[in-house]
Structures are given as structure tokens and as C-alpha cells.
């Protein structure tokens, strides 16, 4: 994968608004944004109701993923173009999800909803109905997903990248600053992790920095591209953003997203934790 196959510009979107093979999907943290206005023809996935199992903490099953896509008229040969608020956090999480279940052509709008709005491009409130399809997903590809035991055994060996804000990494905050601070978990980070906040990969308007800038960002922080890399954050969405940067834009193969992230790791009994910058 590469920037050319994984990322589209707002101009590309404007040219493809009526392209029948393209399905635009908005995925936001603030799920009221879609109702306020969305790209004409776009559908929306709710990150919790649609993309979380609900009973156990896990991705939805293959069968539920198939039902979700079928209901929304997405076919195996559809070009799925994701975008969302919060600099595409949840959209990149959905992108990772589509990759987990083996969707062939999934892309992301560079800059997401923010750039679209900052450019004053049109949003509509009308929700278009789509004809249901019959989607067949592949078995989960766990080569892009990290689990807790892999993370623990990777301390000091693989690249572990903590993409949260410096205040969360150091243990000052337990959650991003737009959320109430939780008391449940220990504060701090996984030992040997490098703190490379997801935001450093993005420009202020939400677009990604150039590949040269991105490669330099990770190298300068001590990431060895010859090794495997595990990205984590608090609940796996921001790290999906950084996973997208490493795996899709920089085209590195051995990169996983630890979606258990700090809410899991910070609750584990007896695992090592580091604090401070």
C-alpha cells in the first residue's frame, strides 16, 4: 500500500461524488457531526454501536461486519472512502478495520472532515438510501493487530510507539484533554515506548505531512524501521492513525495496532510501567 492507493484529496472526492463504485463513509468520535451535515451520499458508521462487539471487548465478528456492510450497500468491489472528524482518528480506525477483514479497496480522505469544512466545501443533511448488498468478508488478518502478550514480550525488543499526548505519556493525564479524566487505570506508559504523538504526523488542517517529514519524525525519535513496530494509545483509535501513517503511507509491513492500548495495559496486574517524559 502507499500514499497513492490509500489516500485521496478533497478534489478527488469532488470529482467522484457521483461515482457509483465509490461509497463514502463518515466515522466520527462525536457522532452528532454526521447529522449536522455530511458529504453528499455518505453513510456513517457509529464507532461504538457499529464497530464494537458490545458484550465482550473486541472487534465485531466477521458475520456482524458482513451484515453492517451489506445493510449499507457496500460490495466487495466497492471503493470505500473513509473520512471523519478529529483528524480522521476514527476514520483511520475504521480503515484498519476494513483491512482486518480484507476489504480490497479502502481509502482515506486526506484532512478528513476538518479540511472539508475549513475549505467551506458543501455538506448536506439528506441521508440517501442505499440498496443492500451481499458482502463477504475474509477471516481476520491479525498480522496488523497486536495483543497484550505480544506487547509485553516486545518491551525493549521491538519498536513500541506511544502516540498519545506527552501529558498522557508522562502520566500527568489519564485521557486526552477533551475527555473527563478517568481514574480506573494506572497512569504512565509501556517501558521502552517512544512518545511520538499522532498529531506530529498531521498538519494543522488535518492533512498528513509528507513522507519525507514522516520518516524523519519516526527516525529522529529512535524508531528502527528494520524492526517490527507496535503502535498504541488509549483505546486504539489514535494509534490506528499512526498505524495508517507507518503501514500505508510509509509502506512499512511489520506494523501493528495494539487496540487494547492503555485502557487494557494500564489495568493489567503486575506489568511494568514507566512514568515521566
Amino acid at each position, binding site marked *: 500500500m502507499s500514499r497513492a492507493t490509500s489516500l485521496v484529496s478533497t478534489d478527488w472526492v469532488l470529482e467522484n461524488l457521483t461515482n457509483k463504485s465509490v461509497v463514502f463513509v463518515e466515522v466520527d468520535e*462525536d457522532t*452528532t*457531526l454526521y447529522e*449536522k*451535515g455530511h458529504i453528499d451520499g455518505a453513510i456513517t458508521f457509529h464507532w461504538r454501536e457499529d464497530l464494537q462487539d458490545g458484550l465482550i471487548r473486541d472487534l465485531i465478528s466477521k458475520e456482524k461486519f458482513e451484515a453492517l456492510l451489506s445493510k449499507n450497500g457496500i460490495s466487495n468491489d466497492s471503493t470505500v472512502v473513509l473520512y471523519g*472528524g*478529529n*483528524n480522521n482518528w476514527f476514520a483511520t480506525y475504521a480503515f484498519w478495520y476494513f483491512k482486518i477483514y480484507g476489504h480490497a479497496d479502502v481509502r482515506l480522505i486526506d484532512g478528513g472532515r*476538518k479540511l472539508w*469544512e*475549513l*475549505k*467551506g466545501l458543501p455538506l448536506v443533511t439528506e441521508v440517501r438510501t442505499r440498496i443492500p448488498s451481499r458482502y463477504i468478508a475474509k477471516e481476520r488478518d491479525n498480522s496488523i493487530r497486536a495483543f497484550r502478550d505480544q506487547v509485553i514480550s516486545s518491551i525493549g525488543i521491538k519498536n513500541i510507539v506511544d502516540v498519545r*499526548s*506527552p*501529558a498522557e505519556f508522562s502520566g*500527568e*493525564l489519564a*485521557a*486526552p*484533554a*477533551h*475527555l*473527563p*479524566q478517568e481514574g480506573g487505570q494506572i497512569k504512565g506508559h509501556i517501558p521502552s515506548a517512544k512518545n511520538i*504523538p499522532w*498529531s*506530529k504526523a498531521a498538519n*494543522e*488542517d488535518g492533512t498528513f505531512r509528507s513522507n519525507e517529514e514522516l520518516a524523519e519524525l519516526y527516525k529522529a525519535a529512535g524508531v528502527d524501521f528494520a524492526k517490527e513496530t507496535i503502535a498504541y494509545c488509549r483505546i486504539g483509535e489514535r494509534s490506528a492513525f499512526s498505524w495508517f501513517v507507518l503501514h500505508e503511507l510509509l509502506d512499512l509491513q511489520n506494523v501493528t495496532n495494539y487496540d487494547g492500548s492503555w485502557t487494557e495495559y494500564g489495568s493489567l496486574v503486575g506489568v511494568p510501567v514507566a512514568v515521566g517524559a
Partner: protein
Amino acid sequence: MRTCGATSGGPDLAGVDLANQSVIQGAVLRGGVSDGVPNGLPVDNAYVRLLDSNGEFTAEVPTNLEGQFRFFAAPGSWTVVVLAFGAREEIKVQAEKGTPVDLVIQI
């Protein structure tokens, strides 16, 4: 239209544990007069970024239908950056537990 009756910028603080949270909030308004009283039209499609004392990005939220936003920060100095169609504003603030920072930002 927000008029002279409105005194607070950000969302209602009912239910927020102010004793334990360092709240930075406010409202983004367009076309008003900067006369010390909130007025103008709420900007419901602005993006508000919170930078820490080193200028590092910490969080970002979209404004709501009332043009409002809220952050739960830590005590200390922060910078609020407002991005909207055709506008960019930066405001330095000092957050503390107990008393929310409540901003009215005219663009």
C-alpha cells in the same frame, strides 16, 4: 443569535466535577462586536485545538451547534487555537481546578 443576556461562553457546567477537573471551555462567535458581552452568531463548524505549555498539540474538538467547546486539561498554562473557515485565533490561558476558564472568542 447570542445577545447581551448571555454571560458565559462555554457549555453548561452542571454535572462537571469542577473540584477535580481543570476545565477550559468557551464559545466561538462570528460577526459580533467585541464589547465585553458575548454576541454574534455561534460558529458550529469551527475546530478548537488545545496546545500544552510547550506548544505541543494535546487535543482538538469541533464546536457544537451553539459554537461551544470544552476541554478537561490539567492545571497550568495552555494555548487554545480556533480554526474556522477563513479564520484562525490563538489564546493563551491558565487552567486550574475549581474555576473553569470560560472564553468568548470572536472571529
